[in-house]
């Protein structure tokens, strides 16, 4: 708890005609000993030495900086102390979200030299809210975990082997487990790969045996063959990995996990419409790869068929079915995550394999077939005629150079075509082509047809990690990514809802070997980062470096299980009675747990129920709605809505001066108690502004804004019971770039509330 707070007002950055000396005097008068220093400074950033001196002279333990948004220049204000004492720092946004957005309720012009009364009230309210915010903040006591410097790599294919080697190069021990009896995975059938490095123009040997040798020689790496995961217990930094190694159970302490379990070929049934299974002369690329390795290819005319439209059409109906199932499940309210009791049932893995995996593998197939055609031409001295029939040659980027090399290859003939059928005619196979570039339809007679492969991620079919988590053994949300263990975020490809476990290679997305190699490095970096962060007791992204963590007051816990069910990261397990068991290094500090808790059991050192309740009670609510105007509380997600509000202010957008904004970590952290506190206090409306939810969610904590939306129903019920109109509370989605819509969103809500009239609790 900050007990001696220095309050500083930034003359340069506040403006608006506010009398800062008067504000300072009022602040001093209201808070007395709690704020031994209250000063107006000419410009905040240049006053750092002065603030440092005040900290020493007055033994301050908190500093409240009132001026520009905390998003601006916050890196200047750290105030490290020689004795290690932590100074709590907070900001009051008097520029973007107070002065710059101010407008008179009647729209009359504002004199920039003389602050209107309502602006003065707003500024004073925000300073007071800032003071109690700091008062209710305590220095963080980090939850340090062991930080075991050993990484578990699951899968010994190209990606897994590279991950192991890179982790070892970084000085970490590695345990690599591989399901099969040898390393190499799919690369066992790829002695020669597509280009792996500059100039990206020609095939390259994979040197698999050398790579395996490197792995075997490396004293940091333990390889276990014939091994599968039994379970992963605990939390990042100090996981216990238990595996079945050749029938024997083995276990290791590991700090983090790289999942490189790769893929399995799409079931052959999906390629039956293209003739697979009807003739030994129609095979898949995977089968062709094995034949190449064994030198068994006898055919002289080979067609590589990249156009998979016939197969996709045949299974189109089926491909759309899973979506229907999801919709039905949603309609009937069956949501595994929100239904806590369901989790106690034995887990049934849903098979996510579908025809879509064929189309998703377009790049790997295009590159792969060029490579295979090239190899067979090499082996036969271009005596073979290889036809590559494509609809769209999907070789994006630098590999165009490889494509061009192949175009110049004598034995390779490529054409764009829509393939309408592939039929066995006994002595030959006929590939019927339409819409070709040759200006006519034709039938191509060949001895062998090679069909593409569908890269089905292992995570679509089986449990590869087997988490010993209360929320179940699997990665959540796999259905959103068609079974791939991928991230939802374009900017953050290694984001995961299971902190400390990072997927790489074809289990994440279909990718060529060069990218698998790079992906392995990325995943290893995240694994190391997670171990080191746990060792320091700080969170990983997006709140990287956060030293706080949720603290539970178990005395008041009623074992309702809501926090354990709703945590987007599965950070909370529980005991038989249902008491939550926190795993701080799985936690990402979003606060969804305390948003869920009806008993106010959970808190962070710098963010808690009591703190926000105290903050929202600071403003004086006018008893007379008509004279003093309504009061609206806005809870804004600090990741997107809050910056959008800042931008709106900077762009001179104005909105109702009756609003008070409190930033929240995520709408998932908004507790219904805050809303009833606001109603009790006499606010006329509460507006929640957060990120988009649904399948394409933009919430940085995955489920926060969605959970908040779901909780609104309960809130409406509570309000109804209190005889308060549920319309007084609304949640609006606002993306970070929708700042120009802010006035319309806020004023629209204020108008609706004004029409409703005063909160019936006002003045009670």
């Amino acid at each position, binding site marked *: 708890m900050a007990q001696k707070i220095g309050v500083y007002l930034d003359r*340069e*950055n506040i403006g608006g005609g506010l009398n800062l000396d008067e504000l300072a005097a009022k602040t001093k008068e209201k808070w007395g000993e709690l704020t031994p220093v209250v000063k107006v400074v000419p410009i*905040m*950033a*240049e006053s750092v030495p002065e603030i440092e001196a005040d900290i020493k002279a007055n033994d301050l333990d908190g500093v409240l900086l009132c001026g*520009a948004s905390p*998003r*601006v220049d*916050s*890196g200047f204000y*750290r105030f490290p102390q020689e004795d290690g004492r932590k100074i709590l720092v907070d900001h009051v946004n008097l520029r973007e979200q107070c002065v710059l957005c101010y407008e008179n309720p009647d729209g009359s012009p504002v004199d920039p030299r003389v602050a209107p009364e309502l602006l003065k009230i707003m500024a004073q309210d925000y300073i007071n809210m800032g003071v109690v915010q700091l008062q209710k903040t305590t220095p963080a006591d980090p939850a340090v975990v062991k930080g075991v410097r050993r990484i578990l790599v699951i899968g010994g294919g190209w990606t897994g082997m590279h991950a192991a080697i*890179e982790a070892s*190069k970084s000085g970490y021990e590695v345990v690599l487990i591989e399901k099969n009896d040898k390393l190499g995975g799919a690369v066992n059938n790829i002695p020669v790969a597509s280009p792996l490095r*500059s100039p*990206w123009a020609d095939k390259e040997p994979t040197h698999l045996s050398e790579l395996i040798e490197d792995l075997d020689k490396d004293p940091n790496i333990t390889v276990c063959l014939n091994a599968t995961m039994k379970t992963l217990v605990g939390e990042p930094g100090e996981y216990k990995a238990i595996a079945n190694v050749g029938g024997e159970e083995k276990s290791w302490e590991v700090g983090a996990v790289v999942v490189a379990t790769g893929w399995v070929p799409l079931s052959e049934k999906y390629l039956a419409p293209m003739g697979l299974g009807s003739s030994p002369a129609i095979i898949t690329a995977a089968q062709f790869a094995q034949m190449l390795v064994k030198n068994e290819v006898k055919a002289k005319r080979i067609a590589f068929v990249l156009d998979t439209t016939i197969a996709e059409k045949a299974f189109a109906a089926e491909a759309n079915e899973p979506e229907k199932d999801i919709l039905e499940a949603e309609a009937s309210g069956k949501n595994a995550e929100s239904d806590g009791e369901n989790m106690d049932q034995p887990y049934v893995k849903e098979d996510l394999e579908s025809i879509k995996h064929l189309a*998703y*593998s*377009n790049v790997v197939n295009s590159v792969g077939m060029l490579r295979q055609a090239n190899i067979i031409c090499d082996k036969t001295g271009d005596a073979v005629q290889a036809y590559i029939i494509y609809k*769209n040659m*999907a070789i*994006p*980027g*630098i*590999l*165009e*150079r490889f494509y*061009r090399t192949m175009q110049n290859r004598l034995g390779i003939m490529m054409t*764009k075509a829509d393939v309408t059928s592939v039929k066995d005619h006994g002595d030959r196979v006929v590939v019927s082509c339409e819409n070709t570039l040759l*200006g006519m339809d034709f039938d191509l007679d060949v001895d062998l047809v090679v069909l593409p492969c569908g890269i089905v991620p292992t995570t679509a079919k089986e449990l590869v990690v087997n988490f010993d988590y209360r929320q179940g053994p699997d990665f959540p949300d796999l259905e959103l990514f068609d079974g791939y263990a991928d991230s939802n975020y*374009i*900017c*953050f*490809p290694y984001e995961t809802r299971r902190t400390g476990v990072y997927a790489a290679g074809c289990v994440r*997305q279909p990718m060529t070997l060069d990218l698998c190699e*790079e992906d*392995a*490095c*990325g995943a*290893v*970096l*995240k694994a*190391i*980062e997670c171990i*080191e962060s746990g060792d320091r007791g700080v969170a990983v*992204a*997006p709140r*990287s*470096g956060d030293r706080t963590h949720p603290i539970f007051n178990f005395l008041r816990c009623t074992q309702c299980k809501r926090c354990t069910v709703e945590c987007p990261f599965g950070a909370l397990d529980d005991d038989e009675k249902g008491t939550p068991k926190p795993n701080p290094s799985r936690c990402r500090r979003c606060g969804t747990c305390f948003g869920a808790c009806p008993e106010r059991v959970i808190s962070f050192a710098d963010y808690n129920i009591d703190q926000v309740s105290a903050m929202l009670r600071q403003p004086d609510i006018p008893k007379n709605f008509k004279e003093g105007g309504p009061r609206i509380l806005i809870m804004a997600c600090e*990741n*997107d809505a809050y910056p959008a509000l800042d*931008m709106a202010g*900077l762009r001179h957008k104005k909105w109702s001066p009756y609003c008070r904004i409190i930033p929240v970590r995520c709408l998932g952290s908004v507790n219904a108690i805050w809303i009833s506190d606001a109603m009790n206090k006499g606010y006329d409306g509460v507006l929640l502004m957060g990120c988009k939810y649904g399948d*394409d969610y*933009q919430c940085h904590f995955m489920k926060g804004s969605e959970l908040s939306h779901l909780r609104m129903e309960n809130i409406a019920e509570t309000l109804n019971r209190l005889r308060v109109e549920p319309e007084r509370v609304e949640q609006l989605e606002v*993306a*970070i*770039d*929708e*700042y*120009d819509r802010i006035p319309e969103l806020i004023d629209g809500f204020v108008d609706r509330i004004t029409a409703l009239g005063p909160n019936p609790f006002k003045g009670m």
Partner: protein
Amino acid sequence: MSNAILVVGGGLTGLTAAIEAAELGHEVYLVEKNPWLGGRVAQLTKYFPKLCPPSCGLEIQFQRIKKNPLIKCFTMTELVGLKGKKGGYTAKIRLNPRHTPPFNVDFSLLASSLEGEAPSEFELGMTKRKALYKAMPFAFPARWVLDPSALSKSDAARVAGAKFLNINEKAKEIELDVASIIVATGWRPYDMANLPNLGGGKWKNCISNMQMERLASPFGPTGGVIKRPSDGQRPLSVAFAQCAGSRDQNHLNYCSYICCMATFKQCLYLVEQNPQVRITVYYIDLRAPGRYINTLEKVQKLPNVRFVKGKVAEILPGRGDNLRVVAENAITGEKQTLEYELCVLATGMQPSLAAESLPLPMPLDMDGFVAGGEEAGIFAAGCARMPLDVSRSAQAGTAAALKASQIAKGR
């Protein structure tokens, strides 16, 4: 010996690499030649395939930088020299003058009172900026820049007396000890002027795909309403010419990876703004790697969009400000000439290093992509190495941070 890492380039790849390396515990110097971080992605309106705004991810990255004292960002800064060897380099950087203070001051009033203007680099020349400016609302660092060359005479007098502005600030050079270097110098749009047959730079209503991003942006020159440059009308018919420069041995000898997806995304912008719009996409191949195929399918289902396999041969003036597009349909063999109100050239990406050089012992290939350097502890990532999309660039930046950290021992 130092445990520090130098990152050259503050676009998405460089930002990712710098932040990840710093969160491992390394000291990181991030050097960016522009006044702000974010690079090309900051100019984009939305990312494919989710159509989410880039500022959302950048905001998180900037927060991570602000919270981490291990990262030191130098904007308007260039790498000018390098001594030493892998594990123990001394890099010399030149900090060009910004003429504004190292902290944030809101200069909007003063800026609006100035007369002098220059074409806005950020808006790709489609609008002008003042001599004192901030290119975009989300600019980070949130500081203004003074460009003395754009000041008018009366401006100069105004600025001379202004508090916090230092017109006499000079460039300065400093040296940094680093163990390894990440090169994330990114790309620039291929210059349309090199494509005279397509009318780039010649016809007003022939714009590049990057200019289209700015037209669709809520903080762009048209406030997000897509209007054609000649008369500010909202176009009813639009042609996209794919591979404008890319996959062409006379121009860019590779595929630029993102242009197909960018066009699909821009089709969605156009249809959202005007359900009556008619669009033709002229292409060689439709490249939607992996799960991006879903976006292609979505666009193919739109009644507004027609795909024609065939490369555009020529773009000529048509009636009024319209343009005539000459292309051969590769399947029917038919030569078509059709008129459109707006043409978008899906111009490719050219590595920045094709036109600039860095004092680093690192080979480039014939197109200007970095082709090595790892042995010297120099790791190229992102579009400096090959054309990539945003997600793959972030992947590359993360991977490069690992490689660079293996040399910079002792965190």
